[in-house]
């Protein structure tokens, strides 16, 4: 049973489809993470970094995932923002080894949090400080500092370090989402 199936079993009690948005800068590891979350038989082998604007969508029993890169110069911006409305949980992936673009990730996160379709909703956000296995990677505590996560007061959030290639840390994140759902903090 894939991690996702476990999650959907729990959430499935609600008998309603849950839309999860998986976002982050290009090359942060979204596709790799989502592939690990997919049922094992559906995991695709070769993962190429997503270039330009592409949206990956897939469904598994009661969960639907929408994955996209927050890249580019605004031309595609309103395309992806269009999906904010339907999202009921967010997974935000950060490449912890990309020190230089941490400011860009923060900028994108701030823009996301200030978007009218997100701002006033208690939508849970799970952060993956990904690529923790790399030598240049900073700790998840440091990532959370750099992104000023302590300023997020009106939404449940959680950060965990991950190595998407080995699948490490993903479980912890998924558990957090599960706990949240059983505690009915998830207002679906």
């Amino acid at each position, binding site marked *: 049973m894939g991690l996702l199936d476990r999650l959907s079993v729990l959430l499935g009690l609600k008998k309603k489809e849950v839309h999860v948005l998986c976002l982050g*800068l*290009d*090359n942060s590891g979204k596709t790799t993470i989502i592939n690990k979350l997919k049922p094992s038989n559906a995991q695709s082998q070769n993962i190429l*970094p997503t270039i330009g604007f592409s949206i990956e969508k897939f469904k598994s029993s009661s969960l639907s995932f929408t994955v996209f890169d927050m890249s*580019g*110069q*605004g*031309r595609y*911006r309103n395309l992806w923002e269009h999906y904010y409305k339907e999202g009921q949980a967010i997974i935000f992936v950060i490449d912890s080894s*990309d*020190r*230089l*673009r*941490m*400011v*860009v990730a923060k*900028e*994108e996160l701030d*823009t996301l949090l200030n978007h009218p379709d997100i701002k006033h909703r208690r939508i849970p956000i799970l952060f993956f400080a990904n690529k923790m296995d790399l030598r*240049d990677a900073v700790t998840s505590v440091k990532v959370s500092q750099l992104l000023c996560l302590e300023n997020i007061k009106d939404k449940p959030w959680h950060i965990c370090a991950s190595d998407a290639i080995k699948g490490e840390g993903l479980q912890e994140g998924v558990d957090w989402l599960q706990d949240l759902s059983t505690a009915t903090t998830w207002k679906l």
Partner: protein
Amino acid sequence: MAAASSSDSDGCGVESNEANLKWLDAHYDPMANIHTFSACLALADLHGDGEYKLVVGDLGPGGQQPCLKVLKGPLVITESPLPALPAAAATFLMEQHEPRTPALALASGPCVYVYKNLRPYFKFTLPQLPPNPLEQDLWNQAKETVITTMTTLKKNLADEDAVSCLVLGTENKELLVLDPEAFTILTKMSLPSVPVFLEVSGQFDIEFRLAAACRNGNIYILRRDSKHPKYCIELSAQPVGLIRVHRVLVVGSTQDSLHGFTHKGKKLWTVQMPAAILTMNLLEQHSRGLQAVMAGLANGEVRIYRDKALLNVIHTPDAVTSLCFGRYGREDNTLIMTTRGGGLIIKILKRTAVFAEGGTEVGPPPAQAMKLNVPRKTRLYVDQTLREREAGTAMHRAFQTDLYLLRLRAARAYLQALESSLSPVSATAREPLKLHAVVQGLGPTFKLTLHLQNTSTTRPVLGLLVCFLYNEALYSLPRAFLKVPLLVPGLNYPLETFVESLSNKGISDIIKVLVLREGQSAPLLSAHVNMPGSEGLAAA
């Protein structure tokens, strides 16, 4: 939030609240120990892994320990010593086939060191100069020259990732173009002075233009088939940078100014900087098609100009001596600057940032975005559009014919007016006069005031007469004839007369006013005064 982190705030007009929100501060290390100038910086995906690296030809502190550094993000990943001070760094594609990882060229002394995958690949050395016969005894050995500047020139394709030749400028006033693979000299051009900055556009095999800013303060422009300069721009000062922006050559000079020139050397504009220019480079924002010039100034500002319009000012903690803009790491619009004290500053242009001139938005005014309540297209409209599409040429011709006829008619009427002196302004150069008339009163008595002005600048006018022509059944004037006093140039002379309306039926008519020269029957000028209808009854 911006106040604490961003350093490009406060002050002048361009730095509105918007402008200081343009850049993200990605990295600042005042102790990075990088000492260089813009020509020695290059950005490229050296490993072909999508992660762009920064190449620095470093002079070392005080120019003492020159070395080649390669940076990944904020960190130096390789460092190797150089035998002489670097003159320029460039990255270029040597060959067509995959993998298309660019080679790195570093000019230093008489050599160009070429690296592939950051491993030494080839060393090109300038050919030795033939010794001067007079110096033969003294030298008995060949003289050596050095490279002063280097750039790249596409071989035969215009593509972004086309194979490129290296172009070298040397201390013995020559320009060399090297073959991208064999590093043989493809062509040699000579200049009247030592080149220090080069700008090249076009393709070597097809057509190219080369601009070389030289130590004698001149910029020479050469074409593909010219062994010698075709045009010359004479600056009145030394060049400190040369950047081609679209079709304009932008030159910075030691007189603290930027100048724009065409490719034929015609000066387009000049802008004055508040301080000495230390370094210059091109800012190219591909996603918005923007090209602009960045200039690092001695007062710690980096100014960004599109032509002569200031787009943005960045304040840095130390004067910037080298800068470059482009894709770094995985982010497209990254600005890399090094400072006089050896610091490294990396800023990333916000993805939502748009440069606008003088703080005011360029592009369409906001009203243009407003939705208009446009009515549905009518049948008539559609028919008309079709007709216009089909008979466009004929309609245009008919319009042009009418326009010419109108112009002809206007010209004829004007000519006639001039010939019969019907106009209120005289046409002869000898009698420059202006006349206008004012009628006051309700009637039956009106006051008619003529304002006569000698519009010459120096000559007074003497011996003029004014004569009124009118229907004597309708009007009576005390005198139909006035003598005009001497007209001093420029002054306005009001000449008054009363006009009595004789008609009881409210009929009004025209009174013609003629200005004549004594002894001549043709009037100098004339005016038709449209008399108003009388509101009161005639006395008689």
